[in-house]
């Protein structure tokens, strides 16, 4: 189910953005670029897709302030740069584009973050994906281990069959940045569910303890806030193989956000939530209850933690009663706990006691 566009389609979409600016100048008005508001105030649940998408609120970036005007000029440079890549059949990383912008004079980026945001802006207004723009992320894809088999087209254009248990080393199968059909095909599996894990330490612990074989699951290391390709492959495995996805994270406000971006869609990428989010994903732990129930070693919430929790209380993605309860409970406790705090009861506690108990609640063990 690729939604890749042709070079011509991409160009046409981008030209619309350029024409908006040009036409305004011709009319004697300041040039503008219209795009959806990208904050939590403008995301809403799309019943048809089952994920959170941007709402109808539009913001107009117009050239009446220096900052916005520079942003418009940068957009034009990026469009031109993408056109050149499309014509030459090349691609570049976002970081490379950032450095190339050094040559754009007044249109150069102030920071790498600028260039990332602008690429996203363009995706949103043109409804293209950055793959269409030939822009690659710098971000690190996930690692996977488990008895599942896929086909990846390598650099030479040959398809390779890879089993993520038998054909990989201890570090697992590395998920590439592009996991669309032209690059990855999901072939077969012999697992019951997929478990996404926040920290590398916990991922390695489960592998060492043979958890994937014992509980017939695929393990996926998220590496913090998961990259697009990580979320995309989870989504594909979940849909194409009809597998449940459980998410095992630290017990803090930031983990809640990671989960929301996996299950409901991230605010920054709400324009493509239906391609990235896995609505059926379940939050396994660490929950606020767990901190109490398992008497886990915990840290005090910092000021920033508390601010984040309060922000989540008004985030539409956390509007259901279970999340409200969890967030409020954490605020009341004033505590957070890491995945590794389970080691208080020994190295095997997580695989022999905690996870089986939690999975049993979901009917997965």
């Amino acid at each position, binding site marked *: 189910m690729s939604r890749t566009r042709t070079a011509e389609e991409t160009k046409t979409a981008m*030209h619309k953005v*350029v*024409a908006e*600016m*040009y036409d*305004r*100048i*011709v*009319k*004697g*008005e*300041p*040039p503008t670029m219209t795009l959806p508001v990208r904050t939590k105030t403008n995301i809403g649940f799309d019943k048809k897709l089952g994920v959170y998408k941007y709402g109808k609120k539009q913001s107009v970036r117009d*050239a*009446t*302030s*220096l900052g916005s*005007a*520079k942003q*418009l*000029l940068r957009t*034009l*440079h990026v*469009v*031109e740069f993408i*056109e050149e890549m499309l014509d030459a059949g090349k691609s570049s990383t976002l970081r490379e584009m950032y450095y190339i912008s050094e040559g754009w*004079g*007044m*249109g150069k980026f102030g920071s790498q973050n600028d260039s990332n945001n602008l690429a996203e802006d363009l995706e949103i207004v043109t409804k293209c994906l950055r793959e269409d723009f030939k822009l690659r992320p710098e971000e690190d894809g996930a690692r996977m281990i488990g008895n599942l088999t896929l086909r990846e087209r390598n650099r030479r254009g040959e398809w390779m069959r890879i089993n993520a248990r038998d054909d990989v080393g201890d570090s697992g199968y590395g998920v590439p940045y592009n996991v669309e059909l032209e690059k990855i095909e999901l072939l077969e599996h012999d697992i019951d569910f997929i478990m996404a894990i926040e920290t590398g330490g916990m991922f390695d612990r489960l592998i060492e303890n043979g958890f994937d074989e014992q509980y017939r699951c695929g393990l996926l290391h998220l590496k913090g806030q998961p990259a697009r390709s990580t979320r995309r492959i989870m989504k594909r495995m979940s849909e194409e193989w009809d597998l449940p996805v459980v998410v095992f994270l630290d017990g803090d406000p930031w983990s809640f956000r990671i989960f929301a971006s996996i299950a409901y869609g991230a605010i920054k990428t709400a324009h493509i939530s239906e391609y990235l989010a896995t609505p059926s994903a379940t939050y396994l732990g660490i929950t606020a209850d767990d901190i109490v129930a398992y008497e886990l070693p915990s840290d005090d919430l910092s000021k920033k933690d508390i601010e984040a929790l309060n922000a989540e209380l008004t985030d539409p993605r956390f509007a259901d009663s279970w999340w409200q309860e969890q967030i409020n409970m954490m605020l009341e406790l004033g505590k957070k706990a890491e995945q590794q705090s389970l080691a208080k009861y020994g190295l095997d506690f997580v695989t022999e006691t905690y996870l089986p108990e939690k999975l049993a609640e979901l009917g997965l063990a």
Partner: protein
Amino acid sequence: MTGIAQKLASNQKQVAISEFFEKNKHFLGFDSLARSLITAVKEAVDNALDACEEARILPTIRIRITKVDAQKDIIRMVVEDNGPGIPQKSIEKVFGQLLFGSRFHAIRQSRGQQGIGITGVVMYCQLTTGRTTHVRSKIATEPTAAFVDIGLDTRKNKATKANAGREIWYNEDGSGKEHGTEVTAEMKAKYQKGRQSVWQYLRMTSIVNPHAEIIFIDPDGEKHHWTRVTERLPTKVESIKPHPHGIELGQLQRMITESNDLNLNHFLLNNFSGVTNRARKELCEAADIAGTRKMKTVKGDDIRHLLEAFQGERLCNGSPVKLLKPPTNCLSPIEELLIKKGLSKTIDSRFVSTLTRVPSVTQGNPFQIEVGLIFGGAMAADKPVEILRFANRVPLMYQQGGCLLTKAIESVDWRQYGLDQAGGRGVPKGPAAVLVHLASTNVQFTSEAKEALADNAEVMEEGRKAMLEMGRGLRKHLEKKKKMAKTKEKFELINDILPAIAKKSAEILERPVPELSGSITKIMSAVISETTTEWNKQTKQTDVEIILFNYTTRVRAYTILATWPEKSGAKIENNETGGRKEALGVWAWKLESLQPGEKKIIAYSLTGLERGDWTETEVLFRGSQDVIGATKMDEKFLQEIRRQEQIMEESDVDSQEAEPGSEAVDEPETVPEKNEISEVPTEEGVEPAVAPPEGQRTLFGGEV
């Protein structure tokens, strides 16, 4: 020389001197080894500055401190000036007279001395090292310089001299020195660095004496050079007679005893300021003494009655006797432009604002407050601001916390003006230095140490008002900076970014580059003014250019006004746009129409100024639509200027009327303050022609 010291040591009188010093070392400024050195430098430099000022010479002063014996803390100080020099006969009098007769009835603003002047230094050197002080001096009319070693004979209250002679005085470059004095003294002292140091004293001295060139070579051989930034010498000050409100019983008694006047009528008219013929009559009536009484017969209760009449405790016709205020032309403020220069040359900064208040009177003594604020640059942002206190141009370096001037600074809530201040009280924090100068004929200190000013409600109020004005200036500056940054951004937007957007979008779409004027008008939608004020090296003039651009869709009309330092003698030249003078230091141009997209330039030059005198022109406008880069004319501002003009005219009349003998009019109204920030011109001081006074001066007109 050790021979002399031993002789002196065995001398009875020597013990007396030691005791005198020991008892009074606080008041003499020799209470610590570090302070002793500062005091010595201070006395020598004050003398040099005073001598140059009186002879109307631009001073160049060299100070060299060397360690003679580091273990025993023996330090040599050499201070050389280019003053008029001292005739050979007078050298011992100047350097060796222990106590001076004070001309007690002459009151004026003077630097005054710490303790007993340079004589104290001679004495201190002799007592701590047993060495005499070497003096070399040359006056212009003699071909050679006189030199002599000065010691002190306290029994006879005069100098001892030895090794006197004459020699040709060569400068370092081999040329002959024309005139000047050089003092070489060796004393037990410690050289230290920091806030209380010779360096700081000289730095502060240089700030309030921008006409002086000061070169200091410290014990490490490092050279510190504070350059002369103006050729203008301080205004000469006139002596004034004491005002009856400021007289104490003892002083009055002495004046009466020493009076040669014919009778009380003449005594009152001849020896006091503020006493008119009418007041003279009324004072006699109030004191119940006949004006024709011979002075010899005025004693005892009479004197007390007279004093009570002075102080308004005895009435005439049921009310206190009305007296004129003392004249204020006896004060010599440093003046705004010069403080500004002094501060800017010493401290690296972005903004300087200075303010000289109109003179005021407390207890019969005229005084005047001046303040300066310097902001930005390399100064530390997280430390308390540096406070630079001065009394009659003399730096005050000790007891900062207990000083009235510090309290005036602390009394202001600086937070509203852009500085940090915990709780809105105390010394504010920020990248700034605040200067406060009190010029007065009678400076009151908290103690004999003469390092902190005593509380005085009127002086405090003046100081506080000056600070508030200064603060407003700072806030205005910071706001203006922000506005200017915004305007600059807008210009970058329409001049650089917008054309780039137009060009790039046209390229991508392969269409012609669109016309920008419509977008520009929409983006700016304002009339914008840009002003530059620059020193022109070739013409030695200050060039001012005011550009106005109408970025709106309508025709606009304005009156544009600009400030220039008229009071400092500047003239507007090459002003082809014409216009007319609106008020003192404010010029106006009427722009009948400014078409959409039209640009108009007003350009002119200012003559009669030195480089750095005038660096920022304030541009104001009259008109219904805003002008970015200019301030809307506040008509109160004009009224204030016009009122000051009036006061200046009136005060000239006042000082004439204050002459004794002339018939009195009513007491002049309270003089409103003259308040300006650096953009506004200063008042040029009245320079009375008066012969330099003779002999030594005492502390601020008081007695030693």
